[in-house]
């Protein structure tokens, strides 16, 4: 018994001496990407600086223990000590990024948060805490104090195109003068500035599908509007013939600094595009009237 007490005392003493030498400084972006797997690919999301500055300079082995809590302190995710990687801390400063601070492959999420993560890759909208500390590599014993930082996640909502409606047929004579485009507002986290909307309209050629036209052609309209959710376009193009003219349009949203509003799989920041058609319906009526009269004459 005495032997074991001595051993425990020795380990604790060692840990205390290590703790005194190593400290951490944790910096977290208060509005990181909503998708947790993106943290590791977005530079500057999270930074952990480990300082090994003790009087006796030696390399230490440790693990990062990370825990996500709701704002009321309820734990919703924690790293699995057996699966986190061992970090070798050399004398001096070691700088680690989000990939080590939030190793998703080694984290266990609880209950509904686990389901939400598997379904969406995100946490429900709200404010959370991320708490970080260093543990011994050999046992889950803290060797630094814990540091917690708050962060808020809200997924991006790109604008939804309203008008013209999908596959709507616009009167050619009216469209030659003006076409009114409308869309819903974009939002991303806490609204700090007014977004910019770049509206783009592409002509669909006869051999193209709508998406093919969007990816192939130069846009006939490419203009940026600040904050407003409506734009009146004067096409300055003649449509008054017998042909139907199909177009596809979309929006690209940026913030005041020009950074795109992106969502998963949509790094282009483009809203789901929609097609509309410009056609002169009266030309069809005119042709029908002439054909009817000619057939009446023949009868």
């Amino acid at each position: 018994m005495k032997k074991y007490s001595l051993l425990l005392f020795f380990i604790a003493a060692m840990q205390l001496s290590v703790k005194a030498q190593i400290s951490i400084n944790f910096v977290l972006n208060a509005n990181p990407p909503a998708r947790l797997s993106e943290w590791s690919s977005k530079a500057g999301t999270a930074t952990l600086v480990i300082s090994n500055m003790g009087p006796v300079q030696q390399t230490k082995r440790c693990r990062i223990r990370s825990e996500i809590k709701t704002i009321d302190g309820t734990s919703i995710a924690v790293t699995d000590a057996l699966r986190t990687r061992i970090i070798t801390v050399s004398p001096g400063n070691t700088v680690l990024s989000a990939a080590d601070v939030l190793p998703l492959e080694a984290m266990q999420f609880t209950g509904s948060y686990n389901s939400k993560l598997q379904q969406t890759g995100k946490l429900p909208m709200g404010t959370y805490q991320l708490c970080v500390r260093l543990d011994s590599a050999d046992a889950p014993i803290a060797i630094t104090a814990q540091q917690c930082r708050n962060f808020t996640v809200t997924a991006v909502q790109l604008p939804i195109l309203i008008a013209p409606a999908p596959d709507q047929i616009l009167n050619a004579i009216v469209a030659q003068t003006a076409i009114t485009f409308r869309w819903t507002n974009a939002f991303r986290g806490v609204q700090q500035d007014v977004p910019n909307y770049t509206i783009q309209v592409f002509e669909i050629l006869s051999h193209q599908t709508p998406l093919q036209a969007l990816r192939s052609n130069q846009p006939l309209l490419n203009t940026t509007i600040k904050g407003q959710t409506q734009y009146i376009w004067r096409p300055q193009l003649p449509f008054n013939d017998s042909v139907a003219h199909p177009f596809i349009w979309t929006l690209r949203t940026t913030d005041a600094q020009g950074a795109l509003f992106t969502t998963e799989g949509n790094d282009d920041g483009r809203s789901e595009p929609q097609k509309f058609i410009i056609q002169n319906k009266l030309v069809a009526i005119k042709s029908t009237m002439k054909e009817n009269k000619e057939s009446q004459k023949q009868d």
Partner: protein
Amino acid sequence: MKTIFITLLVLFFATENFAQPDTTKKQNPFSISGTMGFTYEGYGLHVNPSGSGIYTPRRPWNQLRFNFQPVMKWGKNFTLPFNFNFAAIPTNFAGPYSGFVSGGPHQTIGQWLTNPMNNFGLNPKYKWAELQLGTQYLKYSDLSTGDIGIFGAGFDLHPKDFMIKFFTGTSQQGVDYVAGPSPPGIIGAYKRNHWMFQIGKEKEGKYKAAFTLAKGVDKVNSVTVPPPTNLPQESFVFSFLLDKYFKKGWYFKSEFAQGYYTADVTTPLSTTTISFKPFIDARTSTTRDFAAEGSVGKKSTNYDIGASVKYIGAGFKTTGYPFLQPDHLDYTLNTRFNAWKNKINVTASIGGRKNNMSSTTIASDQLIANVNWFTQFSDKFNLNINYNNFGFQAGSSTSIFGVKNVSNDLSINPTYSWSTTTMTHLLSLNYSYSKYKENLLVFPFTVTDNNTHTVLLTYIPVYFNKNITPDFSVLYFDNQMTGFKNSLLTISSGLGLPALKKKLQLRGQIQYTNGKLNSFSSNNNWIASLNTDWKLNKKLSWTTYMSTNYFKYGDELGLSTLIGANYLESTLRTGLQFKFK
């Protein structure tokens, strides 16, 4: 490009001779139909003052497009359709190939073949068996794949009422990132490979049941300089589709799909998310979710009625539909009916959309209603009324963001026609009123009222004994919101007439618009266009389109040096089309 042009000309003359009408009594087992040709497009822009940047070119200065689309047929059972469409000068603006423009980096052969500007497809078919080679735009179902062109190989078999389909190929080659801005730069892309498979039973007009698998994956090592903003993705979807058509026009359609989507294939393997081996291994950036859609209704001569629902899960994403917006539920009721001895025709629909049901961002609701009412009161007079209502609300006054938009659009269109012995007169009036209101529910609580009135009067005389077809229109457009008033007055006229014993069809149009923005002086816009369609012989036609657009500003640009600034834009499109049969 010269070689391609000469080759096409040789093909053209060869097939022209080969496709001469057979004068023998025996039926020729071989026939060819379809078209081939080329089109040149030229664009010019003159801006005054030069270098002011008041207007930028919106078409390529020159473009040459080729199409080769014959359908060769041997006997009753074997057909070989070609679908070759390609352009000389790349103009990609959006998507993975954006930046390939004249003066910029050159494409490799592989990149050129898979560039969405170009199609090279062959679909030989014998009875119920079709081989699909080259560029194909294949839609397997609404929730699996259908929106992208893939260059590859596959087949589509329909023995009796069975069906088996398979296709594999590449939708985009690896494209190295090139920094802009001069030349424009290329955003870059990973090479993306696809596989798709469908098996089931189908009897047209009766039923369709099909099981579909679709996979797409980006190859990480396909580029030397990876794109800085695009991550290499992977997706796998399996779906079951069931459509049934009953007697008396009743129908039922449904599809259920489960999808796996990996936002970044370089992230570590996940120990918690369930994989779907061997099709996809789950990673820490993988999401798994489902989507479903269903509709039921009846179509008949005198009325239609239908209801549909579509749900896309927050984590459902497929490379087959790259712009599909996830995390929403759509529902629609629609109807159409005739009344009063078929003199009244009414179409109506009402539907809604719930966005962001996963609670990962602010939830929002949309309501869309539409009614179109057409009545033929007599042979001379008819009336069309159209009403659209759109509502959108996201968040509330107590959330971090809240906005409410409501749009009401009403259009009334009476048309009157009367005839004499020599002509018919058609007079159409269209009045539209659009009322749009946006309320910000959080600070600064801005309210925006935006109203638009449009009045259009059109007169079309139809001559019985003359071949000219003129039309005349006057339009007034007025849009107002707080601090902003924009009015436009447009006068336009068109004329069509044949020439050269009706072998040449001409159509010209001229339009003048006077615009006034707030209290600034008016701007003026002239547009003129001419279309010609000349049938050189039974098989060859030459079409030409020319347009000119002249715009002169008032003083709305704000600088004294730009008062009266103007630009002249001209477009020419001319081409020859040969019809094989």
